[in-house]
């Protein structure tokens, strides 16, 4: 059999992977968008009824349906809806009578700040603690940390948030604001004190997961032959930890960090509502309460897109830290 020259994509498995994932991701997002569209616009209790209330006359409903293009076939409706979304025009908020983008833009930024800051702080603390616990496996510190992690893992977000409010904002101390209302036109980073408790709540929730996986991955790596070899060679313990064990534990750590960011997409809903923090989580709950369908559609779609992007990034990162996985055997 003649040797075939590898195509550029075959020679760059990373590029191939990213491309493949992008295609699958866009496909998934398309299906998600269909699901969101059908769920919110086509099922009984459609937008016209949602706006007018259920005792609206048939005449009123018809007028509004024409206005919202609800009288066209569902496929045509979906087509124009998707077209508008892609052109960056997600429609008008029914509750605010403003373009959805105007309503949601500041919220998106605030939520991104909240999720990113909590994710980074949580990851740093958890990986640090996980490495220390693994290095001192079954020691006193490890046992304490592991038991605490097991308990905290299961706590609901709002329980942690309320406990923090009681501790730092109301009953015990009064050193931090218990709600994080931002004046319109300001962004979260302009008022760092307002970010402290929401960030702390989310960080406390995510640390146990990352800690547990880091600890486990490090223990596995520390028990391996190559670490044994390094020790026997007389490599200093810290260097064994950082240069020999940690790189081999990175893949599962990256995966769990990715899962954590995915979790944050849902976790912000509760935390933002607890602190009245003006992000998309609070926006979503407000929109569900007022049945503001265009806003619901946009936020849910944005969260789904975030999920897909994080997944692709995680896969790429895992490939980068595990060279042997880059090539099929």
């Amino acid at each position, binding site marked *: 059999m003649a040797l075939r020259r590898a195509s550029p994509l075959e020679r760059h498995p990373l590029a191939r992977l990213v491309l493949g*994932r992008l295609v*699958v991701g866009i496909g*998934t997002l398309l*299906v*998600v968008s269909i*699901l969101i569209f059908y*769920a*919110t616009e086509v*099922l009984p*209790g459609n937008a016209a009824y949602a706006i007018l209330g259920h005792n609206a006359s048939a005449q009123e409903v018809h007028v509004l349906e024409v206005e919202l293009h609800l009288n066209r076939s569902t496929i045509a409706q979906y087509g124009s809806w998707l077209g508008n979304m892609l052109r960056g025009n997600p429609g008008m908020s029914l509750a605010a009578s403003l373009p959805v983008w105007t309503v949601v833009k500041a919220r998106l930024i605030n939520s991104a700040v909240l999720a990113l800051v909590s994710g980074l702080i949580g990851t740093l603390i958890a990986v640090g603690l996980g490495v220390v616990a693994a290095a001192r496996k079954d020691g006193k510190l490890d046992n304490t940390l592991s038991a605490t992690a*097991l*308990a905290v*893992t*299961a*706590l*609901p977000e*709002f*329980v942690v948030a*309320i406990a923090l*409010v*009681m501790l730092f904002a*109301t*009953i015990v101390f009064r050193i931090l604001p218990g709600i994080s209302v931002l004046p319109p036109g300001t962004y979260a980073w302009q008022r760092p004190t307002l970010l402290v408790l929401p960030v702390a709540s989310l960080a406390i929730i995510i640390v146990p997961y990352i800690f*547990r*996986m880091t*600890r*486990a*991955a490090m*223990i*596995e790596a520390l028990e391996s032959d190559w670490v044994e070899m390094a020790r026997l060679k007389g490599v200093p313990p810290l260097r064994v930890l950082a240069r020999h064990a940690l790189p081999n534990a990175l893949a*599962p750590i990256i995966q*769990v960090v*990715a*899962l954590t960011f*995915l*979790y944050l*997409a*849902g976790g912000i*809903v*509760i935390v933002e*509502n*607890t602190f009245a923090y003006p992000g998309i989580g609070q926006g*979503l*709950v407000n*929109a*569900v*309460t007022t049945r503001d*369908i265009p806003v*619901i559609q946009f936020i*849910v779609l944005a*969260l*789904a897109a975030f*999920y897909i992007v994080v*997944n692709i990034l*995680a*896969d790429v990162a*895992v490939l980068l830290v595990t060279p042997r*996985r880059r090539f*099929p*055997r």
Partner: protein
Amino acid sequence: MTAAARRPRRRRGSGLIMVRAAGTRRGRVGLILTAIVVLVAVIGPLVAPNSPTAFATLPYATPDGHLWLGGDTLGRDALSRVLDGGWVLLLMASAATAVGVGLGAAAGVAAAYLGGRLDSAIMRIVDVILAFPQLVFALLLVSIAGPKLWLIVIAVGVSHAPQVARVLRSAALDISERPFIKVMELNGVRPLRIMASEILPSLVTPIVVEAGLRLTFSIVVMAGLAFLGFGQPPPAPNWGYMISENRVGIVSNPWPVIVPAVLIALLTVGVNTFGDAVARVSIGATGRRSELALASAAIGTVGGSDERLAVGAVLGGEESW
């Protein structure tokens, strides 16, 4: 029939895995915590001194000898509301867990055993549902039909199914390849029967571990939805909603917030700790006891966006290329 083809004798006690877990220290702690809360929720409505919806005192009145937890936001008896506010939450969380584990197990086993197009179709559906955060998925459904309790149960259940399906699919893949299944196929046993009476019973252990994990998440999500106001309509008491409705009066009378929060926390921590004990016992039993296997069981995933780079695959060291 050769020895290899004979079906493996079911490990005695694989159905009794929960009993063995309860024997461990961790399992006992989890069970006791859970039992305390379940007892409060179940017996509570019978022993509540007052009606949970009647006005008994001033809003946020401090506790006294008569009303042990004082008054809530409208001056109702906080203790009676606590005692009556748990059982619906528990029922809904259990029902959602049953829906999620049932759906997920069926989908996972079917995908693994029947394979081919059905497998890829099921796993694509799983990917789509996974793109919604659980709470957001439930909120989306609630936005369509309003906060109906059955709808919330189904929404939370369905949002669990993809993770369950992934975990059980990878467990079922392994069993589908065993010789005793091949022998049954050659004997003409129908696929549905093989799945129902051979594969599913072999998966009891992972199903129990999954169920524990999903129950924890169900309680967290259900209580979270109630906290956001998507639970039973007021004035019905609900631990989740009590926390948000009484938050404003936290300085005058913190008890209507503290007690429900502590009960929910004890419940989720208890269930999760017991689930962890079950996972430890089961992984110990299958001889794959490793910290990584335990951690991934605790996070409840075989992970990432597809099998090749799945967390489980990376963790288990299985080469899945």
